[in-house]
């Protein structure tokens, strides 16, 4: 892990989301992630998608949802403090020119990075609350369709009758709805699984391929063509 300095921290008004910006200029592709750790504890780092990079400022940003042990440590940070980072890791999204983006919750993080690197054919983002909507608004490209719970982002997207290749990231329930109902083109999904090493060593983050073999979300993914993924695990 490398020590990097926290440049900026901003929270949504309900303090459920944090945009964390650190001094880290590692060249990353959209869809890649990094393992982050704060201080000595928890000892195992957590994976977070790279959400934005500012080449000139030499910074990288992460969008982090309130959750668990690491969040308590994040709350103690101030700009100027140090966090540990390992990455960039994973394969990232393919280099397709004008994808449709569908993200739920923190799943919008890698899609924001996609949208910063190329024109997109549409951006559909589902968020949990009005506070999150307000927080994300300045980060989202013009024309983004935002749904707020209890609305489903998949409903908005499917209703739009868009067609073309899709990049999707979010809860697996959301990805499965897309997989089952979207017929307008190929889908690439970015998966989540609990991780420890993030680089293919520990075999802790498996996903079954339809043909039966086991892939690792961290090093074979996190982005997979939807058709390759088996959504259940059979022995």
């Amino acid at each position, binding site marked *: *892990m490398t020590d990097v300095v926290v440049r900026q921290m901003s929270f949504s008004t309900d303090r459920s989301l944090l945009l964390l910006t650190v001094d880290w200029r590692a060249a990353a592709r959209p869809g890649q992630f990094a*393992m982050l*750790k704060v201080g000595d*504890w*928890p*000892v*195992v*780092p957590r994976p977070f998608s790279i959400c934005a990079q500012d080449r000139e400022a030499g910074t990288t940003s992460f969008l982090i949802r309130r959750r668990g*042990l690491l969040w308590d440590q994040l709350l103690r940070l101030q700009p100027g403090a140090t966090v540990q980072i*390992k990455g960039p890791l994973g394969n990232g999204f393919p280099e397709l020119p004008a994808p449709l983006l569908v993200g739920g919750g923190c799943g919008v993080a890698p899609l924001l990075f996609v949208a910063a690197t190329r024109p997109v054919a549409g951006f559909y983002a589902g968020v949990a609350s009005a506070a999150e909507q307000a927080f994300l608004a300045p980060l989202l490209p013009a024309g983004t369709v935002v749904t707020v719970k209890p609305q489903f982002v998949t409903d908005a997207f499917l209703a739009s009758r868009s067609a073309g290749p899709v990049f999707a990231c979010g809860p697996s329930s959301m990805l499965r709805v897309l997989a089952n109902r979207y017929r307008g083109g190929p889908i690439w999904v970015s998966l989540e*699984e*609990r*991780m*420890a*090493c993030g*680089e*293919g*060593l*520990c*075999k*802790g*983050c*498996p*996903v*079954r391929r339809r043909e*039966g*073999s*086991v892939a690792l979300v961290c*090093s074979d993914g996190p982005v997979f063509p939807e058709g390759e993924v088996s959504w259940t*695990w059979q*022995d």
Partner: protein
Amino acid sequence: MAGLTVAVAGLDVVSPVIIPAGPGGFGTELRERYDLTALGAFTAKTITPHARIGNPPPRLVDTGFGLINSIGLQNPGIVAFLDTVYPTLLPFPTHLFLSIAGETVNEFEDMARTLAGVEGFDLLELNLSCPNVEASCGVIGANPQAVHDVVVAVRRAFPDRPVAAKLPFEVPDVAGVVRACEQAGVDVLALFNCPHAARFDVATGKPFLARVTGGFSGPALKPLTLAKILAVRSLTHLPIIGMGGAWTADDVLEFRCAGADLVGMGLHTLQDPAEVCTIAHEFATGSS
């Protein structure tokens, strides 16, 4: 820090710091990405007679001071390993240890015989203690007679290089198992595999892991491991690879105070292989 090279079972080891079986994977990735020359040894993840897809996810749950894993010996099986993975490892930049697990004496013996004909690795570790498989390879190490039988068979089939026995954390009759290892011709004790542990999601009341319990590792374990190594040290002169909670260079020294000769860093490797190599390097060169 003074340099610290160690001779174990006839091997000159440049540093007491080794990577134990599992957390470093099979070695292909590590070897490409990190400079492993200062490590005492690298142990490839356990291989079995046939391919195993491993346990369903979630396979990991964090405990703050450690990690519970339920991998379930995911591996391609010995044949595919030797055909496709092993050639990419050679020559290995430090001592290479291989780890095997079978469900019967015959399975261990057959794998050992196959490996006796394979050049390029330095020690064969018998995983007698995986906490994440139901089959007997998870419990052999707790039974003195079973340990004896496996080791005798392996020794016969694999006579020329040292053999290590990796024992479970929880052994009712430690003295009996250690005696069985000595009598059957084990050269090195690998102490210990991960103890069983569990965590529950209080929001749902359900376990975090698909298979409920897994094997625990990380700094939380260190004080328990040290007491157990000390107990084994009082029973035998066999070299000991200590592991379970070693994280820092001072931890390596503390394990050696308890009686370990070499020290494995599992969880630390998994989160930061470069740092483990740096710690190994400090011991290898005496710099710090």
